[in-house]
């Protein structure tokens, strides 16, 4: 599929992939797609950053290459590695034949045939369906040296392998970078990207998301869930629930055949929403009932 031609197109494209997006996100994504620059998404965990890349690859029919970052991620697992076993065999063969000179052998051994490609190098490969979507997930988990390594890739879409030379992409991949902001990413890298902060959605937006992602949940229940979660986000918690948690919770409650929220079922299922014991202890019981009453009052007020 072709890339979208306007902000509206981009918005529609995301909607086709069941992703409810703000126009601001569509603008940033459209810029990134049409100006062939990476999109740098920052936001709390569970607000749907990774999902954008997945939706993009699905709706555009492009291959998704995912690089999950972790501390100590190095070139041999992110970019390429030589196939040493195969190289050994080649050397033995050359020895057995006995007529090869060193330079020729070296050129032979360090050629693309012996290269094991990892996600970043794969992303530069031409493909029939168009350039792939490259998702560099949770970049903040890796360390500064790897960030520096990415600079060449992200600005020129090329990778330098000392033994071979520079491998450049004919058409740059669509790059999505995500970060949970557990540490600041260096400016040099951000400068090469378009930046977007993915925020928690407002109540209306979250209702839309629930309608699409948890279609089996009764409408009344969804409204209560969204109201409850929106209320929770104003409370001093260690980890606020993200959209992913809202969806999980809606699914859990639907599985339990709940038609409306009641204090008891909230207490039983709070673990799907809050992930720290302190937070759960704080909300469980009277606080949960209080919030629920508030939500019910709001909903009743809105219905009148």
């Amino acid at each position, binding site marked *: 599929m072709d890339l979208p031609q306007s902000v509206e197109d981009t918005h529609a494209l995301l909607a086709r992939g069941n992703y409810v997006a703000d126009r601001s996100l569509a603008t940033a994504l459209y810029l990134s797609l049409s100006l062939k620059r990476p999109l740098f998404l920052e936001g709390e965990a569970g607000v749907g950053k990774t999902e954008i890349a997945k939706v993009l690859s699905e709706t555009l029919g492009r291959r998704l290459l995912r690089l999950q970052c972790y501390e100590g991620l190095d070139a041999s697992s992110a970019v390429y590695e030589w196939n040493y076993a195969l190289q050994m065999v080649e050397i033995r063969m050359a020895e057995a034949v006995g007529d090869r000179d060193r330079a020729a*052998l070296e050129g032979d051994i360090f050629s693309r045939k012996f290269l094991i490609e990892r996600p970043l190098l794969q992303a530069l490969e031409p493909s029939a369906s168009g350039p792939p979507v490259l998702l560099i997930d949770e970049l903040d988990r890796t360390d500064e040296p790897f960030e520096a390594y990415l600079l060449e890739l992200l600005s020129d879409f090329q990778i330098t392998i000392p033994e071979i030379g520079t491998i450049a992409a004919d058409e740059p991949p669509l790059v999505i970078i995500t970060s949970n902001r557990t540490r600041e990413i260096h400016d040099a890298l951000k400068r090469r990207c378009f*930046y977007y902060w993915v925020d928690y959605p407002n109540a209306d937006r979250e209702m839309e998301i629930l309608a699409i992602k948890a279609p089996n949940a009764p409408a009344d229940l969804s409204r209560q869930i969204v109201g409850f979660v929106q209320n929770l986000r104003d409370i001093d918690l260690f980890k606020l629930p993200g959209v992913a948690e809202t969806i999980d919770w809606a699914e859990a409650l639907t599985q339990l055949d709940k038609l409306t929220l009641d204090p008891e079922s909230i207490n039983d299922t709070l673990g799907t929403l809050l992930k720290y014991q302190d937070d759960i202890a704080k909300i469980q019981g009277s606080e949960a009932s209080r919030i629920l009453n508030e939500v019910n009052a709001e909903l009743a007020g809105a219905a009148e």
Partner: protein
Amino acid sequence: MNAISPADGGLIAANIMHFGRALRAAGLPVGPGRVLDAIHAVQTTGLKSRQDFYWSLHAVFVSRRDERELFDQAFHVFWRNPKILERMMSLVLPSISNEAAAPEETLSPRVAAALAGNEAPQSEEQEKDTEVIFDAAMSWSRTEVLGEKDFEKMTNEEVEAARRAMRHMRLPIETVSTRRFQRDPKGPTVDMRATMRAALRDGGDTIPLLKRDRRQRRPPLIVLCDISGSMDRYSRMLTHFMHAVTNDRDRVHTFLFGTHLTNVTRYLRNKDIDIALEKVAENVNDWSGGTRIGTCLHDFNKHWSRRVLGQGAVILFISDGLDRDAGDGVAKEMRRLQGSCRRLIWLNPLLRYDRFEPKSLGVKAILPFVDDFRPVHNLNSLTELADALNRTGPRDSAEMAEWRRRAA
């Protein structure tokens, strides 16, 4: 949709450039490259709506979450006439950058100063008594005497000498292995890549095995220092120590706390100790006040721990454990703090008394959750600290068990 012809593109370009300069003056890292990017971006999305225009510029100029506010304010002041876009499209393009003064709403001082031109930023705050006073008279005490002397009892000359000694202190924290490798002749595994290259160098007749080992790296160091009244003399001395450590290597983060928590890492990064201290004094306003350990730790845990405690961090917690809130909420926060780092070391100047008994409520709340408990009242104790940090110890040592027994 790309209705911008080169002619009018130039005028929009000029205005975007002025906007970029205003942002730069407001403290956003905007260079000519970004301005060009912004022009491209606006040409790509077209000038159809103010919203798209806003978010196009946003995608280019903003690169951190905390810059969003500044951008938002600057945008609305700079492009404040809602008809400006229409006017741009109809090619009547006034230069609006000059009339962007006197905003009605309360602006961030940085934006206001940037838009108003090159006026001096804020009025200087009054000089606080927190500024470190340097004694002009210089004299050298013998270092071994100095090493034993309590910071609190030092004369001005001795303080100066001790500070000089501290400037050269380093903290050799025990290193941890990373997942990366480096060449090492005695290493445990074979470096295949290097081996293959070496083999080829000899024509492939023999294959010399080259070894590699995991690269070692120092974990991040986090310093949390109490600056309340009871710690006064020590925390002022230790600021010098923190400055030395911060500039010694990367990944050191320093926080000061009294009634609230302040991150002073950026100020301490300044190479010049005087400038660094001046900036710290300017930005920290709870020196020599009370202590609210629980509240400050809660703040740290909530806002900073996930950002600075990654990758096996070591925490130096410097406090006398005397808490205004009588240890309220401290235990809970200390538990979380210990749970999120590799090693938590408590430095307490009160340990200088041989008969120190861990009986105060604050101390009792903190003790169960620290991995090491050490004095920090003279130069020697700092030197010993360096040794202690370099030693691999179990998280649960006999010494700590004894302290906990006494605190119970």
